[in-house]
């Protein structure tokens, strides 16, 4: 098997678990959506504040949901010795990393689409440049999923993982929050030229952490 086949094998495994257990559909996606409602309670929905800050709120919701997705992606491995299975499977650790990150990224992408629709319907947001929106979201979700997968496996064998992963991960993905929010604002304002530097930054971030993940996942999986 080449690396692409191994990647898709791992990703399909994780997604199949999600389809069967429905944790993503029934818990993580609703969590993201209820955040939109909570934000409307916290901020005044009448004065157009929500419309202005919608991109930021959306990406905060995505990051918090990403913490849950990461935790979920590795709790399915810790249970029943899944980590041992992965280690013994003979798959390339880089491919395992890419597969797991791809599965998380796909879940986050679905969440972004859902929340984006929610912002349009609930917060009266009007998007002008969809291409920019899609590109920025793609780069951002890949970046967040890579960092999440890295920290997920790093903390997989530890008792304190649920509390440790957020404190490790959120500062690292802070630039993604900044970049994705600014790019979305530009897309909503219809000034795509403002978004390109941010999309560049998000892409550099994604490529960098995909690279680090491919290198570091193997050694970390040994300890998981």
């Amino acid at each position, binding site marked *: 098997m080449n690396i692409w086949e191994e990647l898709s094998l791992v990703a399909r495994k994780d997604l199949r678990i999600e389809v069967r257990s429905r944790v993503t559909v029934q818990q993580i996606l609703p969590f993201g959506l209820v955040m939109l409602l909570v934000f409307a309670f916290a901020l005044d929905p009448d004065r157009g504040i929500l419309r202005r800050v919608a991109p930021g709120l959306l990406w905060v919701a995505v990051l918090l949901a990403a913490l849950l997705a990461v935790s979920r992606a590795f709790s399915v491995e810790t249970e029943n010795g899944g980590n041992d299975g992965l280690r013994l499977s003979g798959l390339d650790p880089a491919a395992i990393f890419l597969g797991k990150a791809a599965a998380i990224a796909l879940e986050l992408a679905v969440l972004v689409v859902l929340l984006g629709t929610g912002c349009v319907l609930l917060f009266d947001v009007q998007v002008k440049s969809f291409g920019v929106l899609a590109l920025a979201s793609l780069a951002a979700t890949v970046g967040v999923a890579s960092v999440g997968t890295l920290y997920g496996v790093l903390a997989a064998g530890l008792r304190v993982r649920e509390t440790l992963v957020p404190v490790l991960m959120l500062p*690292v993905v802070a630039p993604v929050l900044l970049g994705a929010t600014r790019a979305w604002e530009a897309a909503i304002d219809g000034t795509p030229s403002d978004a390109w530097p941010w999309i560049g930054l998000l892409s550099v971030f994604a490529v960098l952490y995909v690279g680090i993940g491919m290198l570091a996942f193997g050694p970390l999986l040994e300890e998981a």
Partner: protein
Amino acid sequence: MTLFAPAVSRVLGWATLASLVVLAMFGLWGAPPDRVQSDAQRLMYLHVPAAWIAYLAFGVTALGSALWLWPRTRAEVWDRLAAASAELGVLFTGLTLVLGSLWGRPVWGVWWAWDARLVTTAVLFFLYLGYLALRRVPGAPDARAKRCAIAALIAFVDVPIVHFSVTWWRTLHQQATIFDPELKAHIHGVMAFTLWWGVFAFTLLFIWLLGQRYRLEALEETRQDRELEQAIAERVRGRAAPLPQAPEAEEREPAPSGAGAPR
């Protein structure tokens, strides 16, 4: 066991103390008050060196982590050095933020501004606070060293990205004065000297503290090993009460005893 020989450490300690005293004298009396900021500017003699040490410390952590990860140079010393340096880095980053805030209140009129360098420093603080939290998780020394070294590099790689993103986002900070090529820094000679002396004194302080923290780390590890040995010895002699909870036992989740084990 220690980073420096005891004699070197002692000399370093006294030299640090002496240079800090000199810094205090120049900072408080020797240097003239700033024309615009008056006495508030004197905080810069601590703020700038503290920020420099923070960056130096995180650089040392990254270097130590990289050297630990590199198979040819893998040695316990690098792991301990990275740990000691990260702790000092967090301390000095915190100090930088507090001193900057105290300075900002009279000069900018606010305790905190959402300025690029402030935000970068705050993110840096939390990045390495997370690293210290990870360090505190007990575990087998090698596994912990590997985990921490990789986490340190993940954080280190993030620093320039955070810096760029936040700089694009907003900029209001006083531009670099001394290194600005166009300005040709017309700082009063004594003020410039005091600033550089501050950097020197803080570097000495950092090196000395690094040696102390390193030694402490090594002593802690020795103590843990001894406690474990003692506990085992007592157990073997069959006279002791139940085994005290050794930190090593906390490392992993208990392995599920079977597929249907309750979790």
